């Protein structure tokens, strides 16, 4: 799935501005209601229909040209509908289509509406041709269900549906009493924070962790911040270490005396487990592609771990300086990156190691270089590329999600 944006609230209104002539109003309205229900059944979203006035999401049918829409339609077939990404809210259907429900004839309004509402909620097109969010209409399906990729996408944006939280939200709406929520840790500034962990994850994505938040690092700077538990369900914040192994496809997260294993964003059965054979409260972890082993760091020592074989840890921990020359003890984070180099992070500095595993000349450097943050000048508070606390606030909903409440 691809994410295009998100609403900063989870309780949304919608309004049906007009209906197609090919379906009875009650049938068409039921199809549109069901389209919203697919999403609200897997994510902590609620949708309330309004019959007048402004609505967050507005559904309408128009022909080839509309004075209210700059994107024309093209008659029967071809383009069926289009929608705007958050937080715009327009959802338009081609009035020239033969909209139907409960039959293989024509175009199923419920399924197309669910697809377009997916866009309105922030989902882009999926590469899974069987997913609802695939760009091409796959035809009427009497027992339609969301594809796992659709579910993963919407939950990456809004978190997972929690039955208890749903009840709680219902009560809140009725009584207007504010819920007692556990506050997340302060939102870090990626350009100035000290890190908990770093990881070169699946598909070459670099993840940085701090407190309850995680973000990706790209050539153009830090990406938007997400709650850790919104991406990896069941994972707490304030991690000690994180490491992804391309050898096994496993991601291991360490915190205290526990280890979590995920494949992608799904926790493996039986986890979290107690960390038994290495010391708790690790500092960092990395995967070294040269020998396909995971290295765990604590204090001045390290353990070398083979994920697929019973490792004899009796000769560990060994001194870090024996293998990685010039790196600090008690690193905050470590990883081998896609350029083939090994990096260590501590405080606001990072070290790069050369092929002989010695610290390269010119290091340590400031983490702002790593994050691709531009330096701030005294008269400029928000340079392009900077992620200032104020700009991140606009991206994120800081309200703890239902999943967070359970975890906390």
């Amino acid at each position, binding site marked *: 799935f*691809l994410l295009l944006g998100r609403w900063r609230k989870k309780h949304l209104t919608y309004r049906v501005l007009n209906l197609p002539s090919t379906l009875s109003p009650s049938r068409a309205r039921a199809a549109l209601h069901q389209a919203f229900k697919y999403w609200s059944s897997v994510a902590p979203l609620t949708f309330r229909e309004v019959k007048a006035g402004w609505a967050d999401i507005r559904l309408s049918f128009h022909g080839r040209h509309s004075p209210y829409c700059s994107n024309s339609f093209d008659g029967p077939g071809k383009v069926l509908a*289009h929608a705007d990404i958050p937080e715009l809210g327009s959802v338009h259907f081609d009035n020239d289509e033969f909209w139907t429900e409960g039959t293989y004839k024509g175009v199923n309004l419920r399924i197309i509406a669910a697809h377009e509402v997916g*866009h309105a909620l922030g989902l882009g*097109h999926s*590469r899974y*041709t069987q997913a609802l969010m695939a760009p*091409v*209409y796959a035809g009427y399906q009497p027992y339609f269900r969301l594809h796992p990729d659709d579910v993963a996408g919407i939950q990456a944006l809004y978190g997972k549906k929690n039955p208890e939280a749903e009840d709680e939200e219902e009560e809140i709406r009725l009584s207007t009493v504010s819920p007692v929520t556990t506050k997340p840790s302060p939102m870090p500034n990626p350009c100035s924070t000290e890190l908990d962990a770093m990881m070169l994850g699946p598909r070459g994505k670099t993840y940085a962790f701090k407190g309850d938040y995680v973000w990706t690092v790209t050539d153009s700077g830090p990406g938007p911040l997400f709650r850790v538990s919104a991406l990896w369900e069941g994972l707490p914040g304030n991690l000690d270490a994180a490491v992804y192994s391309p050898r096994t496809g496993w991601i291991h997260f360490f915190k205290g005396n526990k280890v979590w294993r995920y494949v992608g964003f799904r926790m493996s059965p039986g986890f979290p487990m107690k960390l038994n054979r290495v010391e708790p409260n690790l500092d960092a972890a990395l995967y070294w592609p040269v020998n396909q082993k995971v290295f765990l760091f604590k204090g001045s020592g390290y353990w070398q771990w083979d994920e697929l074989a019973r490792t004899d840890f009796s000769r560990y921990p060994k001194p870090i300086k024996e293998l990685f020359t010039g790196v600090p003890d008690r690193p905050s984070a470590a990883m081998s990156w896609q350029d083939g180099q090994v990096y260590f992070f501590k405080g606001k500095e990072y070290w790069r190691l050369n092929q002989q595993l010695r610290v390269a000349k010119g290091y340590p450097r400031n983490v702002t270089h790593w994050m691709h943050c531009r330096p701030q000048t005294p008269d400029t508070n928000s340079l392009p590329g900077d992620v200032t606390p104020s700009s991140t606030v606009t991206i994120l909903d800081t309200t703890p999600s239902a999943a967070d409440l359970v975890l906390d």
Partner: protein
Amino acid sequence: RALGSTEKEAVLDYLLQYGYLQKPLEGAVDFRLEDITEALRAFQEASDLPVSGQMDDDTRARMKLPRCGLEDPFNQKTLK
């Protein structure tokens, strides 16, 4: 097989409309053959079709299917 000018235009329209080809901001729209081949490869890959970069019957049929009007994110740049 070389495409007729009408079909070539239709293919280019499709690839442009759905984001597989990027219209240059300056100058005339004159795509190189390798740009079109690359765009077709991305479309075929995203559509679970045999990836040839050529306009074959499967690709032609796929492009005729009804679909959403939003762009696809599947060009090589976005994949990267």
